[in-house]
């Protein structure tokens, strides 16, 4: 009996745990490898990932919506021809910006690159963005502003293992990336989270701010660092600019004022700063809890300011980083599927970047469109005057993942054409006019870039099922139907990677010195990794595991403080909606749950949405533990089973984001966007809660 085995990586989060994947007689099994980020660890999502490969409802054939309104299987030619002719019509009538593209942070680098190129070259549309806009866009914006480049962790994950103190602002890796925790074992943790998460339970110090006040807390910590004399003024003078402007805001955030706004005791604020400042090695890390706010970029800037005043970034053994979430959340934001970007993490408004990329693509620079609009606005524009009429979705499920999901669904239903490329049916494929079955992780070759900026090889173990094709093939076929030469859209991943590398040359995220051969030989390559001149070809660039040790990426080599201030979340609680709902992930599921909810073990343990709330908050509304509750905001209502939690703030409810239908948490969330980064305010919605099952409530009493 033959047995196949490949070394690859887990399909889920940005940690990209190394795995050995093997197949025997059609059965696929996985085991963790000794790859540095997981060192033999794997969470239950990773262990059970092979089950998704054999899902009973896996998409095998293209589907087309019939005249009767049902999706029916069709051949590829018919599906692609239909898309091609519809896109031609829409573009001819309404211009190229009437066609939108929506990508995903789970797509390989090659797919993300080709998708961006397809939108700009084959469609000529500026209307491309991706679900990473929902994820860590705020950290990307703040990181770029502060350091001149955005790499989630500008140091290898393993560096955290030697840290003395780590402040984790709005992250819960003990549930969302369990194998990361082995690197945090030694450090004394300060965790900022409104609820006592699994990670907060491990913390020496848990700061519990009211949702939406994170920036006030960051300003307060900076204030204490300066007034108590922890300011590393030698470092800030030598390596930074703009301290005075940021201090001009922080001067008004004395600890007792911060306490009043955030609910974090003054003594805990001081303790946090002292722990960070006294340690020889300390890190400040942010997660979605800091980022998903209407002032998300400012909030991250606030925490970066704190790190800068303590002299952490670019100092060996210390630093600032963002814990990127999605599998290719890092690579996905570098290769041009973002509304404002070209490959190599270049700006689409930079004339030199445009000229370079246009040359690689073999098109005239002036044919490249300008910047588009952020994901939420892109979806909202569907069917509106001047908005998109057609949308192509690759590797995303925006019907569940967009804020104010009810509105997103309503808008998408107004489209003339919705095309969704995915490997499983989702809420979004169910709305589609055309569904295209594509390959998933164990069926394709490619690269991913993990949260530490290391480029990794994803390898195929199995052939694609049915007639499923890789996204790269789909894009080539579509491009050719739109009049592009086939050679412009190669479908071989290594060929695409080589082009991506050339396009990135000289950009902030420079991959030009990386190729499949180097990766396959096991080299640990973190970008930037520029190509060395031909005469030095024998000594290729070793990659950059640690950025900023010499200088930051701004032209003057300095990091920049940001002048930020707190003004509060867009929505305050009121008489009708007196509580704050905040959303997040749990250990058993990933993103909108389309993959993990199909895994029997995970679905059995966490089958339905729940809401964590304080026993008092529940009792006042007659809600009992285990009872189905109705949670409502000004935008919609979701149903979730009550879980009482004596350690959560009484004013706060927590809901997981992994469920669909009436359990979708985003039916509640506020679509207000951060003006700097376009990230939505997923973490603060004013809500009320009541019993959904009234009959049972009577029996209970």
């Amino acid at each position, binding site marked *: 009996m033959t047995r196949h085995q490949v070394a690859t990586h887990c399909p889920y989060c940005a940690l990209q745990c190394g795995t050995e994947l093997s197949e025997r007689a059609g059965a696929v099994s996985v085991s*963790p490898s000794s790859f540095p980020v997981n060192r*033999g*660890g*794997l*969470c*239950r999502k990773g*262990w059970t990932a092979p089950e998704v490969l054999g899902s009973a409802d896996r998409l095998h054939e293209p589907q087309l919506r019939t005249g009767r309104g049902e999706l029916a299987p069709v051949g590829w030619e018919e599906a692609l021809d239909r898309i091609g002719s519809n896109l031609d019509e829409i573009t001819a009538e309404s211009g190229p910006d009437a066609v939108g593209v929506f990508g995903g942070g789970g797509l390989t680098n090659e797919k993300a690159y080709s998708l961006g190129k397809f939108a700009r070259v084959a469609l000529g549309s500026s209307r491309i963005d991706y679900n990473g806009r929902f994820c860590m866009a705020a950290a990307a914006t703040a990181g770029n502003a502060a350091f001149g480049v955005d790499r989630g962790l500008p140091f290898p994950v393993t560096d955290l293992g030697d840290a003395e103190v780590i402040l984790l602002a709005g992250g819960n*890796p*003990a549930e969302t990336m*369990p*194998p*990361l*925790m*082995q690197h945090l*074992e030694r450090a004394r943790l300060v965790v900022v989270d409104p609820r*006592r998460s*699994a990670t907060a339970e*491990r913390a020496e110090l848990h700061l519990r701010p*009211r949702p939406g006040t994170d920036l006030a807390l960051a300003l307060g910590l900076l204030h204490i660092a*300066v*007034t*108590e*004399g922890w300011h590393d003024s030698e470092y800030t003078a030598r390596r930074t600019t703009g301290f005075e402007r940021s*201090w*001009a*805001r922080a*001067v*008004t955030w*004395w*600890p*007792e*004022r911060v*306490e*009043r*706004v955030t*609910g*974090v*005791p*003054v*003594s*805990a604020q*001081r303790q946090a700063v002292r722990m960070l400042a006294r340690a020889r090695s300390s890190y400040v890390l942010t997660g979605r809890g800091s980022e998903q706010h209407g002032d998300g970029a400012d909030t991250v800037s606030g925490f970066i300011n704190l790190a800068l005043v303590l002299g952490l970034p670019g100092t060996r053994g210390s630093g600032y980083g963002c814990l990127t979430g999605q599998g290719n959340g890092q690579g996905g934001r570098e290769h041009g599927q973002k509304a404002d970007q070209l490959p190599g993490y270049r700006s689409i408004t930079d004339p030199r970047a445009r000229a370079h990329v246009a040359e690689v693509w073999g098109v005239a620079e002036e044919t490249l469109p300008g910047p588009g609009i952020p994901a939420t606005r892109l979806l909202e524009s569907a069917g509106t005057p001047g908005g998109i009429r057609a949308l192509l979705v690759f590797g995303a499920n925006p019907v569940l993942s967009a804020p104010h999901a009810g509105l997103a669904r309503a808008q998408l239903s107004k489209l003339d054409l919705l095309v969704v490329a995915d490997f499983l049916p989702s809420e979004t494929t169910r709305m589609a006019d055309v569904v295209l079955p594509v390959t998933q992780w164990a069926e394709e070759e490619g690269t991913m870039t993990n949260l530490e900026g290391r480029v990794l090889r994803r390898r195929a173990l199995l052939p694609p099922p049915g007639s499923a094709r890789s996204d790269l093939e789909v894009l080539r076929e579509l491009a050719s139907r739109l009049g592009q030469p086939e050679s412009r859209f190669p479908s071989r991943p290594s060929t695409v990677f080589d082009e991506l590398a050339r396009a990135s040359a000289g950009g902030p995220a420079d991959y030009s010195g990386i190729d499949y051969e180097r990766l396959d030989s096991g080299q640990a390559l973190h970008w930037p990794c520029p190509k060395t001149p031909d005469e030095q070809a024998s000594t290729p660039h070793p990659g950059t595991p640690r950025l900023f040790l010499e200088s930051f990426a701004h032209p003057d080599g300095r990091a920049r403080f940001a002048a930020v201030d707190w003004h509060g979340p867009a929505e*305050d*609680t009121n008489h009708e909606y*007196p509580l704050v709902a905040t959303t997040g992930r749990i*250990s*058993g599921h990933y993103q909108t749950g389309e993959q993990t909810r199909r895994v029997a*073990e995970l679905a059995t*343990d966490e089958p339905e949405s729940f809401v964590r709330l*304080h*026993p*008092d908050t529940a*009792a*006042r509304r007659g809600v009992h*533990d285990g009872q189905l509750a109705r949670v409502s905001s000004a935008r919609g209502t979701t149903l979730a089973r009550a879980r*009482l939690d*004596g*350690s959560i703030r*009484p*004013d706060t409810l927590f809901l997981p984001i992994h469920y669909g239908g009436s359990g979708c948490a985003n039916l509640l969330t506020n679509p207000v966007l951060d003006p700097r980064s376009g990230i939505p305010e997923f973490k603060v919605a004013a809500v009320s809660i009541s019993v959904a099952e009234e009959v049972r409530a009577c029996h209970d009493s």
Partner: protein
Amino acid sequence: MPRLVIIGHCPAAHRLVERLTAQDYPGSITVLDAAEQGPHNPALLPTVLAHGLAPELAALPEHPSPARVHRNTRVTSIDRTRRRVRTEAGEMYDYDVLVLATGTRAVVPDLPGVSDQGLPAGRTWPLRKPDEGIRMRGQLAADASVTVLGGGLDGVETAHALATAGYEVSLLHREQHPLPRRLDRAAGRIVADTLRDNGVNVLPGETASEFLPGKLVLASGEAVSTEALVLRTGTRPDTAPAGESGLEVSRGIVVDSELRTGDPRVHALGGCAEPPPGVAGSLLEWWEQAEALAAILLGSGNDIPPQPHGAGRVLRARGAGLELASIGSPELLTGKDHEVEHVTFNDPKRRRYARLALREDRLVAATLLGLPEAIATLSQLHDTGMPVPSDRLATLLDLPTGFGTAGSVPADPVLCHCNNVSRSTLTAAYRDGARDVAALAAVTRATTGCGSCTGAVRELCGSLAVSTTERVPSGTDSPEQEGAE
């Protein structure tokens, strides 16, 4: 284009100008300030006294253009008919809208050696602002003896901060305990003891009679050896030159709820103003006045933003280790109102005290000492009007609220949460031959997630090894364990 003239540059005026410039006020903004320097953040005074701070770091930021600020410019008269103010140097400024923001003056007790014709005498420091604190620190030896006069919150904060800085500090106050108007006796004693713990020589029930070089003579005839005297004996609104211009002045410049004086073109805010009763004078409240006045001047007065965070009265001491908050009216804490539920917690040995007044579970007043988490939680509950959790003691001591099944141990606990592996699963795997952590991990996946259960799994291995070798049950809990499987 309206011409806005602001007399004085108190922190409230600073915030007003900030708000107006940020929202593109359509007129000109001119600030006429008698002081040499721009305003400092007064909230930083205790920090400055305790830690020292470069003066530029205590300053409030400069205003961007188009606001124009004239320093060393004292206004001597206001001509409300011609809408014109005149400065000491004889310059004239015409206005369409005038805002008075001259702040406060320190009250200097009329005592020999303390007051010199109403002004502070030598070695006497009426501290109100960080720059004054910085100057005083610059003139005192590191271990100088300092006596603070005044037992209000300002005096308590100042004494505590100076003691933290290493000075030899005495606090002199008239009543039997500090903060007599806000605290009952039990609480007041704890505050005094907290100060003594921090090295402050607290002298209750005393008044000063004369300040001589090196010592302060008390009314009782005793003397306190002291090199400097710090006055925290209160402030009074600085109402000049409003009084001379015929505007109504009581204790401060009288204004209505929209901060308007009797003249509709003239407003006053901050420490110089006297708004209707009930509005108190903390910095946060002055800032709220500034926000409200900015909204009025910008013509969006109907839409004054709600200001939850300074709403209601919360007095919170500043300074590391000084965990003291007084919320709402102390009257409500006396126990005379039967509609009000009271909660009392008194732990003088550990300097902890709480007295709460609740009406329908809402916090209406509180005194909190030495309970940092409770101060944070309850001042927010007071601000938002949310009910206080039913487990009052858990709230005071920052413990999770217990409920229902809390505390009961499940029969078959999950040891590895990341992979949802229970003790019974691990035990079964052990019996099937997986005899160490690595082998158990390979079979059950336990420990492969975050790894935090590794110790527990190892312990289980150990206890199973013991119970396997001791095949004969010896009356311990191992038979029950086996039975449970």
